[in-house]
């Protein structure tokens, strides 16, 4: 058994396509997710696939991996037509995929996870032994060293990602698809990943990198394909293009990559957080003594790799989770204790745009208008005595849609029928319109297209200029750097540093992000 034999049909770097897609077409009901997509990926190259959220990248890759079946079109691997109806077919064709959300069994060891789906016979012992030898060799070859006997769920995310890559290689993948692989990595971990991908390419394997980050495309790919609204709109060698040109292809018009804003005029402290400690339900401290102040008329950004306590901080500030220690003062009054829940905080002027829109920010089965009153449904403006006023709610939703340019302007339409950007605009409209003094925003533009990103950033800056305090938590460094008047960096549950917005560079933030979690970012 040679689990990791290099591709045999052709030598490394030869020009024949490793993967070719011809006229792939896919509809989900009324949504035309892929429109006659054709794509050639050269063997031994790193091919970037870029597009806004909802452009059809993930659908296309899920078709290649066998999660969805195309309505029309064909897939060729190494020049041979293959029928891919389920993941097993694509694994047999030599395609491996590393998903954005890892598909690991957390309680299994790394070794057990890697052989999952390729156990090598009925008796596990034999397969495990062979796999161990093969993996140790692979690890040496690609610098992918991972403790094989550690429990997968206990490993840091960067390491878990390596396990996914090892798994694909162990399943003899010659073509490796990575879907948004850097979403969970620090900049230095991302660099390390890219070096590893380059080594894989140099060994003759083919890598497809799906991302919406222009920087990564420019840094690591050989060719890049741009998708927009389900179709391929542009393909070029990476060295012949620029981030600006790619962004314009993605959106279909010229875009501002910088946030336009004047200098901040910070006023009085509106929100004062002192020694805040938040524990999860297992009693583990996720926020460890965070202290900071938020002033009127400024945007403070919190940068950090996701999972370093930002979610818990957001939940504590908005009243969803009770802190175990410390205090939160809103205009000098303690709100961390005394049962000041999310509803009461809203009426005192703290609005919250949650980081996970579909999990928390909206009710997916409700219409847009029913979502636009969420959290404010008991306000007199939406009620007439005991009854809700449907006409007032509809009129209010229509007005919000008009002023936030939400399309289509149909208050009765189910919220999930709107794009991510339009959903986020509605959430933002809901939270801003009730005139909060403090706005807490988690991942303001997650799953949001570039056009809506500009709009949302503009609104946040306008809110700041109106003398409100804005706290932005984001894993997108570009967003943090573009928006913030001050940047706080969070790592391991602590606020490890503060940088004035004007001096915030990726290097400076990255160093702070990695400083505390240095053991992860080897």
């Amino acid at each position: 058994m040679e689990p990791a034999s290099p591709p045999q049909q052709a030598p490394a770097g030869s020009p024949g396509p490793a993967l070719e897609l011809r006229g792939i077409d896919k509809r989900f009901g009324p949504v035309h997710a892929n429109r006659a997509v054709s794509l050639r990926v050269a063997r031994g190259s790193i091919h970037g696939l870029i597009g806004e959220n909802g452009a059809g990248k993930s659908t296309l890759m899920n078709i290649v991996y066998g999660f969805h079946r195309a309505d029309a079109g064909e897939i060729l691997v190494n020049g041979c037509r293959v029928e891919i109806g389920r993941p097993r077919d694509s694994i047999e064709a030599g395609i491996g995929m590393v998903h954005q959300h890892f598909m690991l069994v957390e309680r299994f060891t790394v070794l057990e996870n890697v052989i999952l789906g390729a156990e090598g016979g009925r008796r596990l012992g034999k397969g495990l032994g062979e796999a161990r030898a093969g993996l140790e060799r692979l690890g040496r070859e690609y610098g992918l060293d991972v403790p094989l006997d550690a429990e997968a769920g206990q490993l840091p995310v960067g390491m878990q990602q390596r396990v996914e890559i090892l798994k694909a290689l162990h399943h003899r993948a010659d073509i490796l698809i990575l879907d948004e692989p850097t979403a969970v990595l620090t900049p230095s971990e991302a660099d390390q990943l890219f070096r590893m991908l380059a080594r894989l390419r140099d060994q003759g394997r083919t890598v497809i990198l799906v991302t919406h980050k222009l920087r990564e495309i420019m840094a690591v790919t050989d060719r890049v394909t741009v998708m927009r609204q389900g179709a391929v709109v542009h393909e070029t060698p990476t060295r012949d293009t620029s981030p600006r040109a790619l962004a314009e292809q993605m959106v279909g018009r010229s875009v501002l990559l910088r946030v336009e804003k004047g200098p901040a005029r910070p006023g009085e402290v509106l929100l004062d957080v002192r020694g805040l400690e938040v524990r999860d339900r297992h009693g583990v401290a996720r926020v460890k003594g965070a202290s900071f102040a938020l002033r009127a008329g400024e945007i403070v950004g919190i940068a950090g790799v996701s999972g370093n306590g930002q979610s818990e901080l957001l939940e504590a500030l908005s009243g969803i989770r009770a802190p175990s220690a410390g205090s939160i003062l809103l205009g000098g009054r303690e709100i961390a204790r005394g049962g000041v829940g999310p509803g009461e905080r809203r009426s005192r002027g703290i609005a919250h745009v949650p980081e996970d829109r579909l999990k928390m920010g909206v009710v997916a089965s409700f219409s847009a208008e029913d979502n636009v009153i969420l959290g404010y449904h008991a306000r007199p403006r939406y009620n007439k005595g005991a009854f809700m006023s449907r006409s007032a709610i509809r009129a209010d939703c229509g007005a919000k849609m008009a002023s936030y340019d939400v399309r289509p302007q149909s208050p009765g339409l189910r919220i999930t029928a709107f794009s991510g950007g339009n959903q986020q605009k509605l959430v933002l409209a809901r939270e801003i319109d009730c005139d909060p003094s403090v706005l807490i925003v988690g991942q303001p533009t997650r799953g949001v297209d570039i056009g809506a990103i500009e709009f949302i950033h503009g609104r946040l800056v306008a809110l700041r200029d109106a003398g409100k305090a804005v706290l932005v938590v984001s894993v997108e460094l570009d967003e943090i750097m573009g928006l913030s008047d001050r940047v706080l960096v969070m790592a391991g549950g602590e606020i490890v540093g503060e940088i004035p917005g004007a001096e915030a560079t990726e290097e400076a933030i990255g160093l702070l992000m990695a400083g505390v979690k240095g053991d992860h970012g080897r």
Partner: protein
Amino acid sequence: MNRTGGLPRWAEFGLLPLINLCAALLISGAVIRLVGESPWAAFKLMAAGAFGAQDSIGYTLFYATDFVFTGLAVAVAFHAGLFNIGGEGQAYIGGLGTGLVCLALGSWSPWIVVPLGIAAGCVFGAAWAFIPAWLQARRGSHIVITTIMANFIASALMTYLLVDVLIKPGQQSPETREFGPGAVMPAVHDVLARIGIPFAQSPLNLASLLALAACLLVWVFIWRTRWGYALRVVGQNPHAAVYAGISPERAILVAMILSGGLAGCLGVNELMGSQHRILLDFPGGAGFVGIAVALMGRNHPIGILAASLLFGALYQGGSQLSFDMPHVNRDMVVLIQGLVILFCGALENVFRAPLAALLGRAGKGART
């Protein structure tokens, strides 16, 4: 992606239940053929038994009234994300409340006793539902388990009360003495006779109007008040509820109290309207039929009305069938009812995907 699975509304609420019903009748027909009777004749007998005469219509509507109460009870809890299996026990205990009022105040004017009896049914049913609700909200005990257990406890408690405490002295059968003349929900045929319209005698009584009013109230509450809105948010997305400052615990308590109160109205129809005493096992499984009714009616009052009519017809038509066809016994009728519940409730998704695909293809063909 969404709950209707991409079906248009008319197909979701009309065609799909119809297909499910037809599938159930098809298999029932096959079983009837197996025992040597003609399925066609059997179904004709059932239909005639349910709707063929004034008194049979009266019985059908009487049974349907029971199912409206229990179906609404299941639906209200369901909107808050709770699967209330305890309708049977809540109806049983609710009936105890109604019955106690009727026994105690039976000689008073009906204008006082009837409203008090209704109120007592609601309060007792709600109180019985409050126990599992509190356990779910405060202790995280799963409502399905606790409501099932509460059914058994209710049954045992009522047996004890009827055999040892409330039994009419000097008789063997475990039931109370008859209610006094004031504790009677007027029968529909009596009311109609008074205004000069003759109608055959049946147990159908004015509790049916109460059931209709309950449908309207439930609709208004769920879709037109902020409390109903809060309930639906909790049922659809508990995380969003917490984020919005809605307490899921409170919503659970409110939903279950309403649910139990609705189930508790069953005694108004059965006891005050028809039996005029408390007797053993008077809910007779209506609490469980309510689950099927709510599922088939898509938890909407109008759907629940329609599904209740169907199940009322199955009950009444079925008993007629077992009476008239020698090879079709009572168990066979239960089998038919079971098949309808199976296809319309438990297996309601079997035909959904094929139907969606079919309609999708037809729709695409129409567009191009």
